[in-house]
């Protein structure tokens, strides 16, 4: 891999130990994947934040680093709401360690906004063709697919290294020739809202790590694309997808139709919704906001909960910035007894481990809750989740659109 003189100096330790290790990581990954050199990045989004996932080892490593990031960098969700961790009954020991991790990142100049939807934040925009080093799987998928920016699936340490250097190794999805669709997915039914999460859950299992191009009957909204990508990155390892006539690269580049073809039918999506009827028990916890709720989703939850009272524990996850931007929605939601929780989510918070059955409207959460939280997950659309929470009838809560 070609390095500039300046990069060689950094690799030889002339810019300090932290940068030496950072560039060593990028060079090793570049060599493994056949990169020709390093390229500048516009921003970094760093995973490895929740104490539940990285533990003491991760905390130690981050604490030992020195210096300042060279590009805007933010964090993935943490294990708790950083301003009000007691609300989800997080233990003081966990909270103390979690705060230490955040402090260690802050010391490096990283913004302590912890969200899986960085693209919704002011001043953190990514544009078509921008090179990024992001590491939260749904954010990667959104950046690549919906925005047309370019990022590989970075691990926590490699994203942090990229942030410290302002560069990443030029391989994989940074290169145009690696962004071409490899499998065509035709969906034979009309889709709405949570159907996209169900589709992503089903499709990701079949597609694995390939790049799909979807042919859909409808034109999905941004939030629907977010749900589709998040689910495919969880049940599979899809980091980039295209939708014919919708996503920017499919529109601009006009791809040829891949030879491999998959057809997905309504009955496959219905199976996801039927998890509600198949469940061995009643959901004890209702969660919405995986990935973090957008403004439009907060508005919808607020409208559904307005004037009602929840009878089951109900958590709505969003970024702190959006929660502050829309206090009216937050107030309406909280007046129902549901809780709006920032900085974290149902998957990475240890709080979810206290429940045995969790209802979600997210294909990603549906895939991860059993393994990460030891709870059964059941799927429903947002209306069904709110009906479950408010105790109204809705036993057939699967109800797809």
């Amino acid at each position, binding site marked *: 891999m070609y390095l500039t003189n300046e990069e060689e100096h950094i690799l030889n330790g002339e810019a300090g130990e932290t940068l030496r290790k950072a560039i*060593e*990581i990028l060079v*090793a*990954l570049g*060599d493994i994947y056949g990169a020709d050199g390093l390229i500048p990045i516009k921003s970094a989004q760093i995973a*490895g934040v929740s104490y539940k996932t990285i*533990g003491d080892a991760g905390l*130690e490593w981050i604490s030992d680093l020195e210096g300042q990031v060279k590009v805007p960098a933010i964090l993935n969700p943490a294990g708790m709401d950083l301003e009000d961790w007691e609300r989800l009954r997080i233990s003081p020991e966990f909270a103390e360690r979690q705060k230490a991790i955040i402090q260690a990142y802050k010391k490096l100049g990283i913004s302590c906004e912890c969200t899986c939807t960085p693209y919704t934040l002011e001043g953190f925009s990514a544009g078509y063709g921008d090179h990024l080093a992001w590491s939260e799987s749904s954010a990667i998928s959104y950046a690549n697919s919906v925005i047309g920016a370019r990022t590989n699936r970075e*691990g926590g340490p490699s994203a942090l290294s990229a942030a410290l250097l302002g560069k990443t190794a030029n391989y994989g999805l940074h290169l145009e020739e690696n962004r071409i669709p490899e499998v065509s997915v035709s969906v034979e039914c009309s889709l709405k809202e949570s159907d996209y999460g169900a589709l992503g859950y089903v499709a990701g299992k079949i597609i694995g790590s390939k790049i799909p191009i979807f042919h859909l009957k409808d034109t999905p909204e941004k939030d629907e694309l977010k749900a589709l990508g998040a689910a495919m990155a969880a049940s599979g390892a899809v980091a980039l997808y295209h939708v014919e006539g919708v996503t920017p690269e499919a529109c601009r580049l006009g791809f040829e139709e891949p030879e491999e073809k998959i057809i997905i039918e309504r009955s496959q999506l219905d199976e996801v919704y039927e998890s509600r009827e198949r469940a061995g028990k009643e959901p004890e916890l209702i969660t919405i906001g995986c990935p973090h709720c957008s403004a439009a989703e907060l508005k919808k939850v607020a409208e559904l909960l307005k004037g009602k009272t929840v009878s089951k524990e109900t958590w709505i996850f969003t970024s702190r910035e959006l929660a502050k931007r829309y206090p009216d929605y937050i107030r309406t939601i909280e007046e129902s007894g549901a809780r709006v929780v920032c900085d974290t989510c149902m998957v990475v918070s240890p709080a979810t481990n206290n429940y045995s059955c969790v209802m979600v409207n997210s294909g990603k959460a549906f895939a991860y809750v059993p393994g990460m939280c030891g709870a059964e997950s059941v799927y429903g659309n947002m209306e069904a989740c709110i009906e479950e929470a408010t105790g109204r009838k809705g036993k057939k809560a699967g109800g797809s659109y």
Partner: protein
Amino acid sequence: MVPIKLKGRTISRGCAEGEVLLSRDPISFLGSVDPKTGIVVEEKHSLAGKSIKGKVLVFPHGKGSTVGSYVMYQLKKNEAGPVAIINLETEPIVAVGAIISEIPLVDLLEQNPYEYLNDGDIVLVNGSEGYIEFRKPEGSKKK
């Protein structure tokens, strides 16, 4: 005894010498190795019950969760990690883990290390220059 030097690819820099411990199976540092002791705790693993502490650990490649990189760092901090690693072909989790833990690592050797090395052999791993070196009785490949 003749010295044998096999060239490979630099993944993690540094230089260390130690006793070989060969693993036939891939290793997931998260879940398979106790970060306090370095003992392999994965039941059906070919190294089950053995300690990787202080060894030159030879394994095909890594597997499992990306948190494995941090576990390697924890092993190092607990002085329970390997002194060096030789892989057939390294994947990113082990590459990153070795670098942050300052464990020299070389892969893609010009000859298959499993055909040359036995448990207990003394081998030098030079991660900075990308080679390994050891001594063998003349004319013998293995044993």
